[in-house]
């Protein structure tokens, strides 16, 4: 979209005594920046990286405070070359995927129960609000007692983290659905389940997306703890091990991997949002 002619000059109006001062409505097309979106979005992280490198090479950031990106890259390359990182990622990915599935199901189900019925809320919500604060770490021994030291406690820990996050946001989403739409749905003869499917869930979707966004991160975080339990592979294990063995460079590599995972998760959720929330004409910043 281009402008056929430039916005007219106000001075065209001869200066008379009582003339209203007019302002032009400037077409957005003339103001638009032509940097593609993905490039602009990568600018932030790249800037951070550049800053890091500059600070490192100028010696402001000493290597024992934070190694330079170059050093980290070398350490990372090594970890990839000797297969540690790829195999760790693979193992962790499986755990995270399973944990996500269970967590998402449980979180959404609980949120539905307490979001949709007063009784459910009274019974479930208070309990969940109470339990979600409990730190995972303290639960690990209990999980081992209940679920052993195989994959079960690891996946349970991940699911737990995911479920609480999702619960909270989906629940808030459900409670934020416009009552007018619920009424409309009821009056259209929707059954209880129809109401849930066609009105409540879509209405709670934006909230669920936020929950999902954090859930993805939480899943990877929970991994660090779950892979303290009898693991000998996985990114969390690599990181825990690096801590025990003072391998700061490996820790930073792991952190970078995590950051990368965070970006990936963000892209996944953004794509989902673009697909699922296209009906939503909301504020997008200026």
């Amino acid at each position, binding site marked *: 979209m281009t402008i056929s002619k430039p916005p007219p000059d106000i001075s065209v109006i001869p200066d008379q005594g009582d003339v209203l001062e007019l302002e032009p409505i400037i077409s957005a097309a003339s103001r638009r920046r032509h940097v593609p979106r993905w490039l602009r979005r990568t600018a932030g992280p790249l800037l951070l990286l550049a800053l890091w490198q500059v600070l490192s090479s100028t010696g402001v950031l000493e290597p*024992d405070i934070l190694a330079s990106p170059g050093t980290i890259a070398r350490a990372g390359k090594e970890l990839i070359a000797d297969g540690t990182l790829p195999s760790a990622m693979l193992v962790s990915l499986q755990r995270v995927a399973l944990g996500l599935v269970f967590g998402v199901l449980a979180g959404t189900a609980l949120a539905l129960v307490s979001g949709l019925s007063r009784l459910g809320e009274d019974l479930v919500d208070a309990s969940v609000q109470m339990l979600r604060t409990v730190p995972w770490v303290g639960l*690990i*021994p*209990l999980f*081992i*007692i209940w679920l*052993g*030291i195989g994959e079960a406690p690891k996946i349970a820990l991940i699911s737990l983290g995911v479920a609480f996050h999702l619960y909270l946001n989906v629940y808030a989403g459900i409670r934020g659905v416009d009552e007018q739409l619920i009424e409309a749905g009821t009056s259209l003869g929707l059954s209880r389940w129809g109401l849930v499917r066609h009105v409540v869930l879509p209405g709670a979707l934006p909230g669920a997306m936020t929950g999902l966004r954090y859930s993805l991160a939480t899943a990877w975080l929970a991994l660090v703890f779950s892979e*303290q*339990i*009898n*693991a*000998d592979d996985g990114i969390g*294990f690599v990181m*825990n*091990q690096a*801590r*025990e*063995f*003072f*391998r*700061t460079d490996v820790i930073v590599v792991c952190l970078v991997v995590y950051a990368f995972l965070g970006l990936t998760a963000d892209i996944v959720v953004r794509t989902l949002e673009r697909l699922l929330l296209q009906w939503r004409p909301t504020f997008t910043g200026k």
Partner: protein
Amino acid sequence: GGSSAADDSSGSSNTSGGLGSVTLNVGDQKGGSETILRAAGELEKVPYKIKWSTFTSGPPLLEAVNARAVDIGGVGNTPPVFAAGAHSKVTVVGASHGSSAGEVIAVPKGSDLTSVADLKGKSVAVAQGSSAHFQLVASLAKAGLKLTDVKVSYLQPADALAAFSRGRVDSWAIWDPYTSQILRNTGARVLTTGDGVVNGLSFQVAAPAALADKNKSQAIGDYLGRLRRAQDWAFKHPEEWAKVWSKETGLPYAVALDAVKRSSGTRVAVAVDDAAIASEQKIADTFADLRLIPNHFTFKDFVDQRFNTGLPASNTPARTFGKASS
């Protein structure tokens, strides 16, 4: 190498100097140096200030030493190896030798395992990078097994206890006071101890920057002297020490007394001599072979022997509370 400062270090604590303005940042663990020093009355009339910092275990304490947040702190025999392996800025300045009877590989009540060789194919819980980790490797080697011959379950002590007490693992490589706890409470049985397998040493590790500071180095020397005297006190008053320790940590008194008699009370201050360095080098090489340390390195580079003066050799036998107590 030693310096002139080392000369006064072994002297008594009443040296005046400029120590009044010195603050020694000491890293500690719960029920550790501060508790024993206080119980032994060694925190009275200290000519410098001591600022205590408490850590949950050796590795974070050494992280703090490396970050120069702490001047000196006591840890076990493996954390310095890993810290050195990662080229952290840490220097070993003191050591003590205790009985290795508390470092055991235990099996749950009713287990039919009788020797280390029986562990082949069985699962063993162990905290990664701990002294027990090395002990496991060494014990297995002594029985002609490799680490890969057993199923290693890496678990932190609290988690391992849960697994061990429910029979989720077949055995557990662990140290005191955990040993005393499980032996007393769960009827577990000792498969083997660390005697003759591990060196039984623990270390005082200082920051090189603190050692370079004349006053601080002097204070460190004085501090090491106090620790040595406190250890002597603990050996002479095991019950009293156990009482203080149990109160401080929340351990049951009986367990604490067991642990004092089995290991913690048996410590004797020793020199960081070549024998000590060699035994640590062995640990370093073992872990390097397991690829838990990226490269082979020389442990001696991380040792400062200036405070060795007047201390017995590192292979001085630990004290015992046997018949000949006192």
